[in-house]
């Protein structure tokens, strides 16, 4: 190798991988140096995940070669990769929910370790890297941040020299992100290289030493994120200029659309959050942003708002009608629309195709003809419109919802709900796992319907998103909602105090 660079830990050259007619990876070459945090930046479907799966041995490349520690590297399975010193933390956690944290760590190890020995090394790791986790709790009961810590511990316990992190912050709160970054920086300073996959530009600028940008399966180039603005980097990533949605113009204060008063709502499970002292109102053409760290009552509030959970002690007034005892379908019929956080299995049915998924939330029966027949031409048109407008990457309207990537399904779900032209749209985490350009599109679409008179409740853990498009913001902590304030009047340090104040 004539152009061998000093300190190269991992190198791949001319990697190609095709799925059917799609070229997921096209002649990809990257070079990861030791002790570096190397970003792999790209939109959904740019080929990042394919590339790291090849590196981790989950996929075999069609052609191309890799070297690791100056030796030929071609893992046939993740076991090979781990044995050679490559670890990976998945985007959709590869944890078993019914098993405990400890069992999950155990099952990810390739050799049998004594329980005591393992306990000791886990505790040592968690102390030195700030990865706190209760080993005996079941994964199903842990927050996203805690789950990720379990995954990281599981990867670190095998002492990898290269750690692959696939979109690690997509499920984390700002606070959790910060502690993750500390951990990663410490790891890098101690000699572990990190291949960091993300499409969040700010964090790449904060964290990474180098950034390889991927677009449509090919490398665009290698950049120094410290020397560029996130915007410049973003434009390279999407290959066109980015826009920032503007929040809706001043709300029409006279037309209250929804008011909610909750004294107390107990959760259904012991792990749920009790909602307390919630008093909110949202007006026409107004976006009310509800922020807060995950697990502080977002899910529970959403259930009360959608009618999945009905409670007599709650007062919900929609345009002067009491609707607290209506079920979700009845609420949809009078002009509400919802997009819950969990897109597969909650917002969409995985085993139904996109047409059918459009049909299942059709409160105004616009796809229904006489005698209950389905109006397929109308349905087709509607679904195609969503796909086109929201740039949903799919093989067509007859693709199963489960065949779409998370971000694409999210775009579809938001599009489907917005297409109902609701007077009140309640959405939880609308851009979770969605790439930059599509996220901007989704936000713009939300702003657009607000501008035409809809009221919006936007629940999101992405603080930037809330501050960007909301007229008013409130924060959930431990089931309590702070008093909504105008976004313009709020200061960033106040937010930290509100969010961190009550919750631990």
């Amino acid at each position, binding site marked *: 190798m004539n152009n061998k660079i000093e300190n190269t830990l991992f190198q791949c050259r001319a990697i190609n991988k095709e799925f059917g007619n799609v070229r997921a990876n096209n002649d990809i070459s990257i070079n990861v140096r030791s002790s570096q945090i190397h970003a792999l930046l790209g939109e959904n479907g740019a080929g990042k995940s394919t590339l790291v799966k090849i590196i981790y041995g989950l996929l075999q490349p069609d052609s191309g070669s890799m070297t690791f520690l100056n030796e030929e590297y071609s893992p046939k399975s993740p*076991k090979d990769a781990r044995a050679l010193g490559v670890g990976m933390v*998945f985007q959709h956690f590869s944890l*078993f929910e019914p098993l405990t944290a400890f069992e999950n760590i155990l099952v990810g190890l390739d050799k049998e370790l004594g329980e005591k020995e393992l306990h000791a090394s886990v505790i040592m790791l968690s102390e030195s890297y700030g990865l706190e986790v209760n080993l005996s709790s079941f994964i199903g009961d842990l927050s996203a941040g805690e789950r990720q810590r379990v995954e990281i511990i599981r990867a670190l316990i095998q002492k990898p020299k290269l750690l692959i992190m696939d979109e690690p912050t997509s499920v984390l709160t700002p606070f959790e992100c910060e502690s993750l970054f500390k951990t990663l920086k410490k790891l890098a300073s101690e000699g572990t290289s990190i291949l960091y996959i993300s499409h969040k530009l700010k964090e790449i600028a904060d964290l990474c030493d180098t950034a390889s940008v991927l677009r449509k399966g090919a490398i665009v180039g290698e950049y120094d994120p410290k020397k560029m603005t996130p915007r410049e980097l973003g434009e390279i990533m999407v290959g066109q200029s980015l826009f920032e949605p503007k929040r809706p113009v001043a709300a029409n204060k006279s037309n209250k659309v929804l008011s909610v008063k909750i004294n107390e709502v107990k959760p259904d499970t012991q792990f749920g959050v009790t909602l307390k002292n919630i008093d909110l109102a949202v007006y026409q053409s107004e976006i009310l942003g509800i922020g807060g760290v995950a697990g502080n009552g977002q899910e529970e509030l959403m259930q009360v708002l959608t009618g999945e959970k009905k409670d007599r002690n709650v007062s919900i007034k929609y345009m002067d009608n009491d609707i607290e005892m209506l079920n979700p379908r009845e609420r949809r019929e009078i002009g509400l629309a919802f997009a819950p956080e969990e897109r597969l299995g909650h917002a969409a049915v995985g085993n139904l195709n996109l047409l059918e998924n459009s049909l299942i939330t059709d409160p105004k029966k616009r796809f229904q003809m006489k005698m209950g027949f389905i109006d397929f031409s109308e349905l087709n048109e509607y679904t195609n419109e969503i796909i086109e407008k929201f740039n949903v990457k799919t093989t067509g309207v007859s693709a199963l919802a489960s065949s779409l990537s998370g971000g694409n399904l999210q775009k579809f779900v938001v599009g489907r709900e917005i297409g109902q032209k609701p007077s009140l749209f309640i959405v939880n985490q609308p851009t979770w796992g969605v790439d930059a350009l599509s996220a901007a599109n989704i936000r713009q679409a939300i702003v657009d319907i607000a501008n035409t008179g809809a009221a919006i409740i936007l629940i999101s853990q992405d603080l930037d998103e809330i501050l960007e498009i909301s007229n008013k913001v409130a924060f959930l902590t431990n089931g309590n909602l702070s008093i909504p304030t105008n976004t313009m009047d709020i200061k960033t340090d106040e937010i930290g105090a509100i969010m961190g104040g009550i919750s631990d």
Partner: protein
Amino acid sequence: MDLSEINFAVLVASLIVASTPLVLAALGELIVEKSGVLNLGVEGMMIIGAVTGFIVGVETGSAYIGMMAAAMAGALLSLLFAFIILIMQANQVASGLALTIFGLGIAALMGHPYTGIKSPQISTISIPILSEIPVLGTMFFQHDLIVYLSLISVLVIWYFLNRMRAGLILRSVGEDHDVAHSLGYRVVTIRFLAITFGGAMAGVGGGYLSLVRVPQWTEGMTAGAGWIALALVVFSGWRPFRLLIGAYIFGGITILQLNLQAIGVNINIALLSMAPYLATILALVVISMSRFRGNRGAPGCLGRSFVKIT
């Protein structure tokens, strides 16, 4: 009618014998389901085990050799199922039902010349000292080898699932095969092994039925035992010890009602024959209703085909 005619110690001893086929078959199915596969062919594998065990037992004159042949026959039939659902990725429910129907049919064909023949004896092993304890000795310590083995299997399987790494891997494959695959575990291989084990256990259960419990070959002699075994697995919440309790309740009431019939209790025979099924379902529903800590229910991927994502 005289209830004192019923000897309690003998009753318990015979309930254990009556329950053993169920314990064996259900334990096998427990392992299969823990790996994420639903094999509804238990009944079919049991009856194949019963007929093969009986034929080989009669021909060789050894019940033990018969029992081994039963295990092999059950395993062989389950391999067919494994091939259909793991390699061809057919629907598990339909394939399992087909397996039962196939098993019942082929067993009837094979067993026809052997109807009405007596099977070779299996000797009981009295455990020294323990078997001499009054009452308890008769109940628990004067049984044949298979009974002891079935009880040991409960322990071993509990230990395997909860204390061993291999058991953890098996459970993780059953909970989420995609994750297990992404960690580098061979989902299909592990399920193959689990299914084969389940088949062998069901086979032994069937063999015990025809060689010890009855002991005779009659067509359709499993009489729904495979289905009861399947129900036991579900109602036990996929736990070996509760499964044992469930099986013994079923066996116990079966024996009790037979005794009651024998001494001429004035209850309709149809109701008495129904009793074990009803009581087992009731007892297990009650057990599974109470919320024990860590009761996590069915394996996450139970019944789902594993399609490797490339």
